[in-house]
């Protein structure tokens, strides 16, 4: 009996229903939490956790999971619904969004397609672990082996005897109706992949004796959180083994698995996945540019721009083990020929990527000066200091900027005439209008500094033949160049704090709770102590007790009440 099987007997999960949305409001707890954070700066405060969540697999998670289990050559014939973004992250939205009939149809199509590929003759020898005694007759033992092989990988936990028997029965039923053993197996596999146990990351806790105490995720839920956080994929066999052997409940065992996952090739895609979410790169799917205004824009440029920024991030943070804040000042240039046209730099490498450095004279420093950010946060036909300023506030500093009032006259800033040739001139109208000024004063001083880049990201010094004034400021720091803006972002105290906030939200799939402030302070201190190295931050989170803690039912009830009181509008 395998460790996984051994756990089945004692597996009595307490299913925690997901809450829809919550925000802790306990002022007393906050004060206590803050006090508790005043002790040993690198000692984790007592775990308080947050509500358990039930997260739907994102499209990326779904794809990497299938690739990890069945191989990367298995195609997934489905279109996925766009993820809901909440608290700035799709990862959080996955715990809040429902599942539409369209999604269910697509999941069904995907499951059938994947299962068909698995049992296809060309893959059968590799992916089906046994041969039926006779194709026309049902081979229960072989069917059971298939279920045992893939069930735990797909459900991220051992299957109960009842579940296993159910899928074997489904295989038998399929075989009897279709007259083919493999057709039966196909239906059983497809059944697993449309199960909520596969599509949703359902978190379960260990049984507790004291209802007022935070609970702890069970081993399988721990493994799942760890795995998707550190590899963006389902737990592999080794992690499931460790979970089955209770190793994740020991510091040493947990550390061994965390270090193994961070050292694995899947860690880099996991970091990518987080920044892809944090930078809202799913918007690339909607990115459009006026080809008359920006003839260099095409789908290759869009794809390469996104990849460039992600390469810059992973290269600095993982390969070089660099300081997260340096992302806003780095001159590292990962380029393709298509991007070279937009940046107006030579790219000798004829095919693929070239790693080089933007010279100081290039006016490029930091990912906010990349085509990905500049093009994504612009209009199709012109740049937008407001969109760029808003994005920098929200993405990098976690500062929420309200949506514009409904009666704004946008034609004023879109109209270019002799009196208002530059965006600064046009936005002056907004900054002098009291109903607009409040927000524009927050956004525009940052965004106007990026006006040296047009709506695609090409450097320019003039707009409509008028010289661009790129001066700006960020929370009291003035600058006159895009490089100065990058340095201000680098030096801003909220920059690393925002990253900590977002990466933790991403890891747990929910907003942080007020009760977790001491824990967040702990993470912030740890991040600073580790020279703002993101892998170290992720390791700290993965090794922390709070990462696996679920707030007690009483607190849950408070969260629900608070949520009802606070819920208003879209918080994305």
């Amino acid at each position, binding site marked *: 009996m395998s460790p996984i099987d051994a756990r089945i007997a004692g597996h009595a999960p307490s299913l925690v229903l997901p809450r829809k949305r919550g925000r802790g409001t306990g002022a007393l707890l906050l004060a206590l939490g803050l006090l508790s954070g005043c002790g040993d700066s690198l000692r984790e405060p007592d775990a308080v956790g947050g509500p358990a969540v039930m997260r739907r697999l994102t499209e990326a998670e779904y794809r990497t999971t299938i690739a990890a289990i069945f191989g990367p050559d298995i195609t997934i014939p489905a279109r996925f619904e766009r993820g809901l973004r909440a608290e700035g992250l799709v990862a959080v939205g996955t715990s809040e969004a429902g599942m539409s009939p369209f999604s269910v149809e697509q999941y069904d199509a995907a499951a059938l397609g994947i299962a068909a590929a698995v049992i296809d003759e060309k893959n059968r020898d590799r992916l089906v672990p046994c041969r039926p005694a006779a194709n026309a007759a049902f081979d229960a033992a072989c069917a059971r082996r298939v279920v045992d092989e893939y069930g735990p990988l797909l459900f991220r936990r051992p299957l109960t005897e009842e579940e296993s028997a159910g899928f074997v029965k489904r295989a038998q039923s399929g075989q009897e109706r279709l007259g083919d053993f493999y057709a039966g197996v196909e239906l059983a596999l497809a059944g697993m992949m449309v199960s909520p146990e596969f599509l949703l990351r359902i978190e379960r806790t260990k049984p507790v004796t004291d209802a007022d105490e935070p609970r702890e995720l069970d081993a399988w839920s721990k493994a799942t959180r760890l795995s998707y956080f550190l590899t963006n994929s389902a737990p592999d066999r080794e992690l499931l083994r460790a979970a089955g052997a209770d190793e994740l409940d020991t510091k040493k065992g947990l550390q061994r698995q965390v270090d193994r996952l961070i050292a694995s090739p899947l860690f880099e895609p996991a970091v990518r996945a987080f920044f892809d979410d944090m930078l809202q790169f799913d918007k690339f799917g909607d990115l459009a540019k006026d080809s008359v205004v920006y003839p260099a824009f*095409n789908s290759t440029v869009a794809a390469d721009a996104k990849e460039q920024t992600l390469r810059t991030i992973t290269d600095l943070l993982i390969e070089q083990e660099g300081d997260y804040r340096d992302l806003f000042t780095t001159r590292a240039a990962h380029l393709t020929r298509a991007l070279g046209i937009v940046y*107006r730099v030579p790219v*000798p490498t004829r*095919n693929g990527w070239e790693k080089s450095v933007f*010279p100081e004279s290039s006016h490029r420093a930091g990912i906010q000066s990349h085509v990905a950010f500049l093009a994504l946060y612009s209009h199709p036909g012109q740049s937008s200091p407001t969109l760029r300023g808003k994005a920098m506030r929200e993405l990098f500093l976690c500062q929420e900027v309200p949506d514009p009032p409904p009666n704004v006259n946008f034609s004023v800033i879109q109209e270019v005439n002799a009196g208002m040739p530059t965006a600064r001139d046009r936005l002056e109208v907004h900054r002098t209008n009291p109903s607009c000024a409040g927000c524009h004063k927050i956004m525009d001083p940052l965004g106007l500094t990026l006006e040296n880049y047009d709506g695609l990201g090409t450097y320019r010094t003039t707009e409509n033949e008028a010289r661009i004034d790129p001066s700006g400021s960020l929370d009291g720091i003035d600058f006159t160049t895009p490089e100065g803006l990058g340095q201000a972002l680098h030096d801003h105290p909220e920059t690393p704090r925002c990253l900590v906030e977002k990466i933790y939200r991403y890891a747990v799939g929910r907003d942080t709770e007020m009760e977790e402030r001491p824990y967040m302070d702990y993470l912030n201190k740890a991040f600073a102590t580790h020279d703002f190295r993101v892998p170290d931050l992720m390791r700290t989170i993965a090794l922390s007790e709070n990462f696996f803690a679920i707030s007690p039912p009483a607190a849950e009830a408070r969260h629900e009440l608070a949520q009802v009181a606070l819920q208003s509008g879209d918080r994305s």
Partner: protein
Amino acid sequence: MQRFASMQRAKGPAGLLVVPAALFLSFATRADAPFIENGRAGFVVSDIKYALADDAEKTGACPQGMSRNVEEIFALTAEGRRRKGESDEAYARRLNDGGKKLSTAPDGQNVCMNPEAAAPDPNFRTLRSTSIPIDGIDIDGVDSRADASTPQSCPHQDAVGKQGQRGVDNQFARVVGCSRSYQSTGQSNGYAIEMLTGAWGILISLDGVDDIRNDDSVEVGIHANADPIQLSPARVPLPYATYAMDQDPRFRAKTRGRIEDGVLTTEPVDVRFHTITNSLHMERAMNHARLQVTIAQDGSLSGYLAGYTPVETMYDYQFGYRNGKNAKGEPGPLPLRLGTGNGAARVLGYTCPGAYYALYDYADGDPDANGRCTSISTQYRIAAIPAFVVDVATGSVNDRLVDKAPAKQ
């Protein structure tokens, strides 16, 4: 990690010296001339066509009419006239057969593959008038007259340019001036479309530029492009793309030039480019070629690339396609070469021998030992846009997959 500034003397994968490309050391922007940096600039030719006279219909340049193809010539004969009651289909078939006979020399050779085996075509018309303006520049610095020759030339009458300038050397324009496919609506001057598909291209590089408006000495490179030209979704060439020079020294040329009031004029240099027609790879070459282009503030160039095309080379890539090669550099399939030469002549309205002999009749450059000129002045109107010209190994990653077996003939 490779810094742009450190690439200058790196060895390429093929062991070749990687020469610094135009705009390579740094790409800081200068508002007045953003395309030039550290005295270097690069360009990719974005449009090219023969510089010719205005349409004959407008100028009256062809009082004897236009050149004819073999079917049209056959139709002028008694045998080729339409017979009473003859159906369209039958007559078309007879014209085709008659044309085929005319395409075959007395010794049985095809006249496009072997134009010298046929007699000159009296139906091939050329632009003989000396008063009709022809587009172009004075390549050799001599306003030649028909009754005089120089050691470098044969007697010929230089044309008057469209702006009235004297001494325009453009004998090719005379050869094709009465061919319908070289009129403004014809198909023979639209070969730039092959360049825009990425089949071939031309790069220009400047080095040692002190002043982009006036500089008495700059180094100029004129090279074949090893990379496909980059286009917008509307198929407009994009500025500031990176292109590699052809690695074959035969397709790279360097000369010196001067810039006066924003006009770059180079010293003569032999140049050679690729050209592809109907999947047949050929070479477009010119001897003693000069570049005379105006440099605009945005870094675009417009003007002329003019020189003397060897007659045999011109005949090959423009009329006969005799030596067209496949992508591996071997002789292209014979049926393809035959079909292309004869088909083009029929569709475009001339005969291969007519063009061949006319090219020699009008040849005005590179006289051989017998005093016969072997090249003909040819002028291209070109436009170019800023680009980064680099010198890197250009071997394909798929070279090892290429079938080394010779092509079937």
